[in-house]
Protein backbone atom coordinates (compact mmCIF):
# COMPACT_ATOMS: atom_id res chain seq x y z
CA UNK A 1 0.00 0.00 0.00
CA UNK A 2 1.08 3.52 -0.75
CA UNK A 3 1.87 5.44 2.36
CA UNK A 4 1.98 9.20 2.56
CA UNK A 5 3.08 10.37 5.97
CA UNK A 6 2.84 13.90 7.30
CA UNK A 7 5.17 14.63 10.17
CA UNK A 8 2.63 16.26 12.49
CA UNK A 9 -1.08 15.75 13.08
CA UNK A 10 -1.49 18.98 15.03
CA UNK A 11 0.64 22.11 15.21
CA UNK A 12 0.19 25.37 17.07
CA UNK A 13 2.42 28.24 15.99
CA UNK A 14 2.65 31.93 16.72
CA UNK A 15 2.06 34.70 14.21
CA UNK A 16 5.26 35.54 12.37
CA UNK A 17 6.94 32.18 12.95
CA UNK A 18 8.47 30.24 10.09
CA UNK A 19 6.66 26.92 9.86
CA UNK A 20 7.73 23.72 8.13
CA UNK A 21 5.27 20.97 7.23
CA UNK A 22 6.91 17.74 6.11
CA UNK A 23 5.55 14.98 3.91
CA UNK A 24 7.16 11.68 2.96
CA UNK A 25 5.88 9.06 0.51
CA UNK A 26 7.21 5.54 0.13
CA UNK A 27 6.12 4.60 -3.39
CA UNK A 28 8.65 6.40 -5.58
CA UNK A 29 5.99 8.77 -6.91
CA UNK A 30 7.21 11.63 -9.06
CA UNK A 31 4.29 13.98 -8.39
CA UNK A 32 3.63 15.48 -4.98
CA UNK A 33 1.09 18.07 -3.90
CA UNK A 34 0.19 20.33 -1.02
CA UNK A 35 -3.49 21.18 -0.54
CA UNK A 36 -5.26 23.32 1.97
CA UNK A 37 -8.70 22.20 3.21
CA UNK A 38 -11.18 24.69 4.63
CA UNK A 39 -14.90 24.17 5.36
CA UNK A 40 -17.04 25.14 2.41
CA UNK A 41 -14.02 25.66 0.17
CA UNK A 42 -12.96 22.08 -0.42
CA UNK A 43 -9.37 21.29 -1.26
CA UNK A 44 -7.32 24.04 -2.84
CA UNK A 45 -3.93 23.41 -4.41
CA UNK A 46 -1.07 25.40 -2.91
CA UNK A 47 1.94 23.97 -4.75
CA UNK A 48 2.85 20.85 -6.61
CA UNK A 49 6.09 19.22 -7.63
CA UNK A 50 6.32 16.99 -10.67
CA UNK A 51 9.81 15.76 -9.84
CA UNK A 52 12.81 16.41 -7.63
CA UNK A 53 13.67 20.10 -7.46
CA UNK A 54 10.75 20.90 -9.78
CA UNK A 55 7.80 22.88 -8.49
CA UNK A 56 4.91 24.91 -9.75
CA UNK A 57 2.48 27.23 -8.06
CA UNK A 58 -1.04 26.06 -7.53
CA UNK A 59 -4.10 28.19 -7.04
CA UNK A 60 -3.23 29.78 -3.69
CA UNK A 61 0.59 29.98 -3.36
CA UNK A 62 0.76 33.36 -1.63
CA UNK A 63 2.51 33.15 1.72
CA UNK A 64 3.86 29.65 1.04
CA UNK A 65 6.95 28.11 -0.49
CA UNK A 66 8.02 24.50 -1.00
CA UNK A 67 11.12 22.38 -1.16
CA UNK A 68 11.72 19.04 -2.88
CA UNK A 69 15.34 17.99 -2.52
CA UNK A 70 14.61 14.25 -2.48
CA UNK A 71 12.01 12.34 -4.41
CA UNK A 72 10.25 10.99 -1.35
CA UNK A 73 10.02 14.24 0.60
CA UNK A 74 8.03 17.41 -0.08
CA UNK A 75 8.06 20.26 2.41
CA UNK A 76 5.64 23.16 2.71
CA UNK A 77 7.04 26.33 4.26
CA UNK A 78 5.06 29.17 5.73
CA UNK A 79 7.57 32.00 5.64
CA UNK A 80 5.79 34.13 8.25
CA UNK A 81 2.73 32.42 9.64
CA UNK A 82 -0.47 34.43 9.86
CA UNK A 83 -3.81 33.65 11.49
CA UNK A 84 -5.49 33.28 8.07
CA UNK A 85 -3.22 30.30 7.44
CA UNK A 86 -4.93 28.36 10.19
CA UNK A 87 -6.22 25.35 8.29
CA UNK A 88 -5.94 21.64 7.55
CA UNK A 89 -3.00 20.91 5.23
CA UNK A 90 -2.99 17.77 3.12
CA UNK A 91 -0.09 16.28 1.23
CA UNK A 92 -0.65 13.92 -1.70
CA UNK A 93 1.44 11.95 -4.16
CA UNK A 94 0.83 10.39 -7.53
CA UNK A 95 2.68 8.24 -10.04
CA UNK A 96 3.52 10.31 -13.11
CA UNK A 97 2.15 8.81 -16.31
CA UNK A 98 0.37 6.07 -14.42
CA UNK A 99 -3.10 5.85 -12.93
CA UNK A 100 -4.37 9.29 -12.05
CA UNK A 101 -5.17 8.33 -8.46
CA UNK A 102 -3.66 10.63 -5.86
CA UNK A 103 -2.85 9.25 -2.41
CA UNK A 104 -3.27 11.55 0.56
CA UNK A 105 -1.61 11.80 3.93
CA UNK A 106 -3.64 12.07 7.12
CA UNK A 107 -3.38 15.84 7.25
CA UNK A 108 -1.81 18.42 9.55
CA UNK A 109 -4.14 20.72 11.41
CA UNK A 110 -2.24 23.98 11.86
CA UNK A 111 -3.41 26.68 14.23
CA UNK A 112 -1.69 30.05 14.11
CA UNK A 113 -2.26 32.18 17.21
Amino acid sequence: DVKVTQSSRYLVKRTGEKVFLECVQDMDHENMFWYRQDPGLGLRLIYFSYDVKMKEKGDIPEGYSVSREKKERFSLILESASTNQTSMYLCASRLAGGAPEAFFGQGTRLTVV
Partner: protein
Amino acid sequence: QQQVKQSPQSLIVQKGGISIINCAYENTAFDYFPWYQQFPGKGPALLIAIRPDVSEKKEGRFTISFNKSAKQFSLHIMDSQPGDSATYFCAGTTSGTYKYIFGTGTRLKVLA
Protein backbone atom coordinates in the same frame (compact mmCIF):
# COMPACT_ATOMS: atom_id res chain seq x y z
CA GLN B 1 -13.40 27.10 -16.75
CA GLN B 2 -11.76 25.36 -13.84
CA GLN B 3 -14.53 25.00 -11.30
CA VAL B 4 -16.22 21.87 -10.11
CA LYS B 5 -19.49 22.70 -8.36
CA GLN B 6 -20.73 20.20 -5.80
CA SER B 7 -24.07 19.93 -4.05
CA PRO B 8 -25.51 19.57 -1.51
CA GLN B 9 -23.13 20.87 1.12
CA SER B 10 -24.58 18.48 3.67
CA LEU B 11 -26.91 15.50 3.52
CA ILE B 12 -28.73 13.44 6.11
CA VAL B 13 -30.07 10.04 5.07
CA GLN B 14 -31.76 7.24 6.96
CA LYS B 15 -30.04 3.88 7.13
CA GLY B 16 -30.93 1.87 4.05
CA GLY B 17 -31.73 4.94 1.99
CA ILE B 18 -30.06 6.27 -1.14
CA SER B 19 -27.55 9.11 -0.87
CA ILE B 20 -27.05 11.25 -3.97
CA ILE B 21 -24.35 13.85 -4.41
CA ASN B 22 -24.09 15.93 -7.57
CA CYS B 23 -21.21 17.65 -9.33
CA ALA B 24 -20.99 19.87 -12.38
CA TYR B 25 -17.81 20.79 -14.21
CA GLU B 26 -16.86 23.40 -16.74
CA ASN B 27 -13.61 22.22 -18.27
CA THR B 28 -14.41 19.94 -21.20
CA ALA B 29 -10.78 18.77 -21.24
CA PHE B 30 -11.31 16.83 -18.01
CA ASP B 31 -11.05 13.11 -18.70
CA TYR B 32 -10.95 11.58 -15.23
CA PHE B 33 -13.51 12.16 -12.50
CA PRO B 34 -12.77 10.62 -9.09
CA TRP B 35 -14.76 10.66 -5.89
CA TYR B 36 -12.84 10.79 -2.65
CA GLN B 37 -14.15 9.79 0.78
CA GLN B 38 -12.80 11.41 3.92
CA PHE B 39 -13.48 10.26 7.46
CA PRO B 40 -12.89 12.65 10.38
CA GLY B 41 -9.20 12.91 11.23
CA LYS B 42 -8.14 11.14 8.04
CA GLY B 43 -6.96 12.19 4.63
CA PRO B 44 -9.22 11.67 1.60
CA ALA B 45 -9.11 8.24 -0.03
CA LEU B 46 -10.18 7.30 -3.54
CA LEU B 47 -13.64 5.73 -3.51
CA ILE B 48 -14.53 5.32 -7.17
CA ALA B 49 -13.66 7.06 -10.44
CA ILE B 50 -14.98 7.30 -13.98
CA ARG B 51 -13.78 8.37 -17.40
CA PRO B 52 -16.16 10.19 -19.76
CA ASP B 53 -16.36 7.38 -22.29
CA VAL B 54 -18.83 5.52 -20.04
CA SER B 55 -22.11 6.72 -18.57
CA GLU B 56 -22.08 4.67 -15.40
CA LYS B 57 -19.68 2.81 -13.15
CA LYS B 58 -20.69 0.64 -10.24
CA GLU B 59 -18.58 -0.73 -7.40
CA GLY B 60 -20.61 -2.47 -4.74
CA ARG B 61 -23.09 0.00 -3.27
CA PHE B 62 -21.41 2.97 -4.95
CA THR B 63 -22.34 4.13 -8.46
CA ILE B 64 -21.17 7.07 -10.53
CA SER B 65 -23.57 8.35 -13.17
CA PHE B 66 -21.98 10.53 -15.84
CA ASN B 67 -23.71 12.87 -18.29
CA LYS B 68 -21.14 14.23 -20.71
CA SER B 69 -23.49 16.51 -22.62
CA ALA B 70 -24.69 18.16 -19.42
CA LYS B 71 -21.18 18.18 -17.91
CA GLN B 72 -22.53 16.60 -14.75
CA PHE B 73 -21.79 13.53 -12.71
CA SER B 74 -23.18 12.15 -9.52
CA LEU B 75 -22.42 9.65 -6.79
CA HIS B 76 -25.17 7.32 -5.64
CA ILE B 77 -24.76 5.33 -2.43
CA MET B 78 -27.32 2.57 -2.26
CA ASP B 79 -28.43 1.04 1.04
CA SER B 80 -26.58 3.79 2.93
CA GLN B 81 -25.02 2.70 6.21
CA PRO B 82 -23.88 4.67 9.27
CA GLY B 83 -20.31 3.69 8.35
CA ASP B 84 -20.74 5.72 5.15
CA SER B 85 -20.95 8.90 7.23
CA ALA B 86 -18.05 10.96 5.90
CA THR B 87 -17.24 13.92 3.68
CA TYR B 88 -17.26 13.22 -0.04
CA PHE B 89 -15.36 15.21 -2.65
CA CYS B 90 -15.75 15.03 -6.39
CA ALA B 91 -12.94 16.15 -8.65
CA GLY B 92 -11.89 16.51 -12.26
CA THR B 93 -8.52 16.33 -13.91
CA THR B 94 -6.94 15.99 -17.32
CA SER B 95 -4.54 13.21 -18.25
CA GLY B 96 -1.03 14.52 -18.63
CA THR B 97 -1.54 17.32 -16.15
CA TYR B 98 -0.96 17.22 -12.44
CA LYS B 99 -3.84 19.18 -11.10
CA TYR B 100 -7.08 17.98 -9.59
CA ILE B 101 -9.91 20.48 -9.30
CA PHE B 102 -11.99 19.49 -6.31
CA GLY B 103 -15.56 20.27 -5.44
CA THR B 104 -16.31 21.90 -2.11
CA GLY B 105 -17.34 18.65 -0.41
CA THR B 106 -20.53 17.09 0.93
CA ARG B 107 -20.82 16.04 4.54
CA LEU B 108 -22.99 12.92 4.66
CA LYS B 109 -24.58 11.64 7.83
CA VAL B 110 -26.42 8.34 7.78
CA LEU B 111 -28.76 7.88 10.72
CA ALA B 112 -28.96 4.46 12.34
